[in-house]
């Protein structure tokens, strides 16, 4: 009987491991890349655009967020990547430029770098490995330039605004998930690998309360903040203050620049892996932990 129990236990564990293995992926980043971007909001590159849809996503909720995707390759990133313009319907010039591109067209792009384990593939993604030419506008990717701030030398910071008609995920749904995404972080002399399961809840609506003063860098304003649901501003949803990233010269950045510790703001944001925290944790690696994340603030909501 004991033997049967052991076998059943082993079978349960094996199944659990196989399920876990099927739903997670490893991203290997060069240490230099991590050091370069961990305290930056954006990345600038020449994007070789390989595939894109003809129209932006519809707008309602979930993945119907009004963005337009383009899959491409970049010498600076050297990973499968997708770049996205938010509020794409209001960016007619950029849409027109995108429509004129064909496979292999080079377009200068600046935008918010974003790592999120949302579109997992079957293989680990290793920075510097040859990147296959994508055949769809949304291939398996963990790296995004999202949202784009400058497309083909035209600034599109005005796209950082509320998405009319879109219902974002409520904070009480999104943040408990963000807080508990498991990850394994492991460092070597030249790289950091992050293994994690599928991420979700791209756009979340939440209230932040500044926990410190705003720090300004070349391309962003960073601030630590506690997070609340708009329907319950009494109980914070995060175990500690989380880092918020405002893109310089956006409307949201202008507003937060004038706030002080304790002030609150109702915002729309997108999660990304916090590479500054990943780098800090890497000093203690290998470690299984919660995936460090921060929020890119897209808009201040009424």
């Amino acid at each position, binding site marked *: 009987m004991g033997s049967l129990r052991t076998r*059943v236990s082993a079978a349960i564990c094996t199944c659990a491991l196989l399920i876990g293995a099927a*739903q*997670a992926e490893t991203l290997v980043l060069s240490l230099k890349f991590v050091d370069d971007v961990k305290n930056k909001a954006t990345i600038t590159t020449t994007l070789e655009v390989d595939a894109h849809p003809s129209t932006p996503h519809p707008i309602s909720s979930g993945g119907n967020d009004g963005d337009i995707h383009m899959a491409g390759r970049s010498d600076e990133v050297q990973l499968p990547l997708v770049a996205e313009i938010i509020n794409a319907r209001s960016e007619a010039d950029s849409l027109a430029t995108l429509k004129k591109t064909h496979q292999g067209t080079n377009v200068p792009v600046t935008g918010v770098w974003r790592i999120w384990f949302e579109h997992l593939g079957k293989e680990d993604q290793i920075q510097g490995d040859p990147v296959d030419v994508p055949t769809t506008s949304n291939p398996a990717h963990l790296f995004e330039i999202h949202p784009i701030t400058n497309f083909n030398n035209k600034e599109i910071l005005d796209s950082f605004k509320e998405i009319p008609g879109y219902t974002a995920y409520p904070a009480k749904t999104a943040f408990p998930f963000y807080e508990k995404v498991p990850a*394994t972080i492991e460092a070597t002399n*030249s790289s950091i690998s992050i293994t994690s399961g599928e991420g979700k809840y791209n756009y979340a609506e939440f209230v932040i309360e500044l926990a410190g003063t705003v720090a300004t860098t070349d391309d962003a304003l960073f601030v630590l903040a506690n997070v609340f649901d708009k329907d319950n501003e009494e109980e914070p949803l995060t175990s500690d203050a989380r880092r918020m990233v405002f893109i310089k010269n956006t409307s949201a950045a202008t507003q937060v620049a004038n706030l002080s510790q304790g002030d609150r703001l109702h915002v729309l944001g997108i999660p990304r892996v916090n590479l500054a925290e990943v780098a800090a944790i890497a000093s*203690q690696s290998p470690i*299984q932990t919660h995936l460090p994340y921060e929020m890119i603030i897209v808009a201040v909501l009424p």
Partner: protein
Amino acid sequence: MNGILGSTTLDVVVGLVFVYLLLAIICTSVNEWIAGVMKVRSNNMASAIEQLLDAQPGGKDGAANWFLQQFYSHPLIAGMRRQNAKQARPSYLSARTFATAVMDIATPQKPGVITFTDLEVGIRALPDGDVRKTLLALILNSQNDLAKAQKNIEDWFDDTMARVSGWYKRTTQIWTVAIALLLTVASNADTMRITSTLWKNPTLRAQVVESAKNRTEAPESSVSVEYKDKNNPLKPTAKVTKEELGILSQLLGWTNAPLKPGDWPQRILGWFLTIVAVSLGAPFWFDVLNKVMNIRSAGRPPDEAAKAAPATTTATAK
């Protein structure tokens, strides 16, 4: 529990592996700190670049290492120096950046886009030297194709860097053993004593196993991130929970009790085992810990194993 699975023996093994892991992490952190202070990476890189580009005169005054000087002052390379560190050399360099800078220096007569002929003419115009000979050999093997010529130069760089990587690994390994030796003796991390303590003290053993479980399971991670200054969101730091440090303090350390002469061979054997174990590195012990924890979970009665299954999934998800 009965049998090997879930037994005291397995818990002692978990405890020992966990202590090795923590010591290996400390060892790695110290090693990284030393590498940073001594600029080991950038010095290794500088040696490799020197090996590649030295002994090539040029310029009006015919300086012996003209090509090397030009390389370091090239905007692509100079731009990689850290701010306020004029003498600092890059720690990392891609093959493409190296090849682009070298080709640009070799073709001063043709700023901007060049052809294969421009490159060949430029290299032939260099005074006799090692770099001229090497570059000519590399590009003449490329069938007049500029892309192939660049690829050959990149491969030349990559081959040298592979050797540099070997030097770096050997240097790191020597430092790792040295640090492991100091750490082991300073903290009296005697494998024999640790094993004996874990065997005899069930309370401590249970505490160590629980901490080991936390380290391999995400829900109760043993490393947290903190921003010591809430006004500086650019400098997060990681901290190991006090629980882990507390465990180490209970298992390691010197006591006032004098050692009998006959105890020394066992003590030295214990240290030796710890040094060898710590030198294997944190990733090795982390893998071992995960495997042992999985065996331990598999050996539990079904009700207990079922409770642990979701956590085990996250612990080994890849």
